[in-house]
């Protein structure tokens, strides 16, 4: 894997906006195409293998957590447990997830799994695909995201209830809206009837005992880009418990995998895995060089890098009340002063592609940049 500096396309902003990519720049560019990452076919094969294996281990870990009632480690509230177990036993389907991986040229290690509400899907599946068409059309890229999203929505169609599939996110975030609209776009191409609704517009009709959309139509299937750990604390969760025949995608059992408390569980179950870093709950930690992470946090917030008892780097945020885990430090190489994290997508049950984000610091935050990649030997 190497980073190659190039000249960005003339007027690249217009090119990506033409695709519907409106959040390419905040104060500074988020999407950057003055460089790309080049990986070999063998490296891609290793990433694909790691992703499949991590997904297999994650499913075993969910069963382990449920079997041993390990919910307190995850700070999962009592009222959510029965619903999580119901969703797992009913084999409620998942459409996607993103493993964030470190790669040092020989080893691939899992940093965390964004299992419930991952974004950067549109950038990975669409924007970098079209970038490659312009930059070197004949070159390859590990990017079957678009094809597999459409294929998996088709696959899920028989498992959905009658009626449309609703898609929900919060108002006011173009990034979230773009992610949801992209998923909906793929569902439409798969032949599904879809609707968009914002989370706070979801209604509850007491008379019929159903969730309804803005036209008072019953919601029976819904993809939500909204974390389960927030939903379980909100007023409508008690209504949700009354209505267990709705397909929520991602399903409630993803609440276990999106929580960083899964990292010590994975380490306990698979200590021989080449893809895992040593990890412990904070109470059981014996590491001296490690990364301290809140079990519930987003966008790299409230993370500390500890070396020999001293805080080497940290990020701010509002998370941490639910507890922390400690994960062994893993050094990844710097590419032109940048640290790269590989987001490896699972669509359905398959490894589907990657997106690479890089940062100037050692912690990947919401200020990191998305850089396209290509495959070349």
């Amino acid at each position, binding site marked *: 894997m190497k980073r190659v500096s190039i000249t960005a396309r003339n007027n690249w902003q217009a090119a990506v906006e033409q695709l519907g990519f409106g959040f390419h720049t905040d104060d500074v560019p988020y999407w950057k195409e003055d460089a790309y990452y080049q990986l070999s076919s063998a490296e891609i094969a290793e990433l694909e293998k790691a992703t499949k294996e991590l997904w297999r281990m994650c499913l075993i870990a969910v069963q382990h957590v449920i079997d041993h009632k390990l919910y307190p480690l995850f700070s999962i509230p009592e009222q959510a447990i029965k619903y999580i177990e119901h969703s797992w036993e009913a084999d409620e389907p998942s459409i996607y997830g993103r493993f964030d991986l470190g790669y040092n040229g020989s080893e691939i290690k899992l940093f965390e799994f964004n299992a419930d509400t991952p974004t950067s899907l549109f950038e990975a599946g669409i924007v970098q695909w079209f970038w490659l068409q312009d930059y070197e059309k004949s070159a390859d890229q590990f990017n079957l995201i678009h094809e597999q999203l459409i294929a998996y929505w088709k696959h899920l169609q028989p498992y959905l209830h009658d009626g449309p599939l609703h898609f929900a996110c919060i108002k006011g975030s173009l990034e979230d809206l*773009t992610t949801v609209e992209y998923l909906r776009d793929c569902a439409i191409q798969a032949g599904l009837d879809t609707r968009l609704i914002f989370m706070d517009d979801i209604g509850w009709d007491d008379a019929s005992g159903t969730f309804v959309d803005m036209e008072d139509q019953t919601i029976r299937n819904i993809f939500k880009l909204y974390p389960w750990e927030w939903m379980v604390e909100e007023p409508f969760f008690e209504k949700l418990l009354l209505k267990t025949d709705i397909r929520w995608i991602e399903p409630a059992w993803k609440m276990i995998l999106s929580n960083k408390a899964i990292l010590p569980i994975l380490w306990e179950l698979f200590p021989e895995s080449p893809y895992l870093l040593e990890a412990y709950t904070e109470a059981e930690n014996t590491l001296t060089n490690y990364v301290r992470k809140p079990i519930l946090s987003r*966008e790299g917030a409230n993370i500390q890098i500890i070396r020999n008892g001293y805080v080497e780097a940290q990020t701010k945020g509002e998370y941490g009340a639910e507890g922390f885990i400690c994960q062994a430090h893993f050094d990844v190489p710097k590419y032109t002063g940048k640290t790269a994290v590989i987001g490896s997508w699972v669509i359905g049950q398959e490894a589907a592609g990657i997106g690479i984000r890089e940062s100037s610091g050692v912690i990947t935050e919401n200020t990191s940049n998305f850089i396209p990649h290509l495959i070349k030997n």
Partner: protein
Amino acid sequence: MKKSKYVTLVLITSALAACNKSEPTEPNWDSNEVYMRSDSTASYTHTQGSYLPLFLWYYAFRPYGMFGANGFRHAGYYSGALSRSSNIGSSAAKSKALRGGFGGSRSFKVGA
């Protein structure tokens, strides 16, 4: 090949990207005139098309209602671009559904 053979979008267009553009500081008085209302029982408001926020496509009509003992009760739709008379009309309560029970935890982006 490890990339999608072809990619087509049927829903997302450049109009979505335009949601991130800031509003013009001055209205364009040469634009087409637009008359809008959010309730069929209300009178129309005369406004200027291009002075409307560019994110109108997704955000123009928001639910409105009131908070009571049982939370937020939805009563109809509202647009900040319209006058009160064009928003409310005579339909005091158009829906029986209670809304706002999800989505209140945070106001910023969700994605991880």
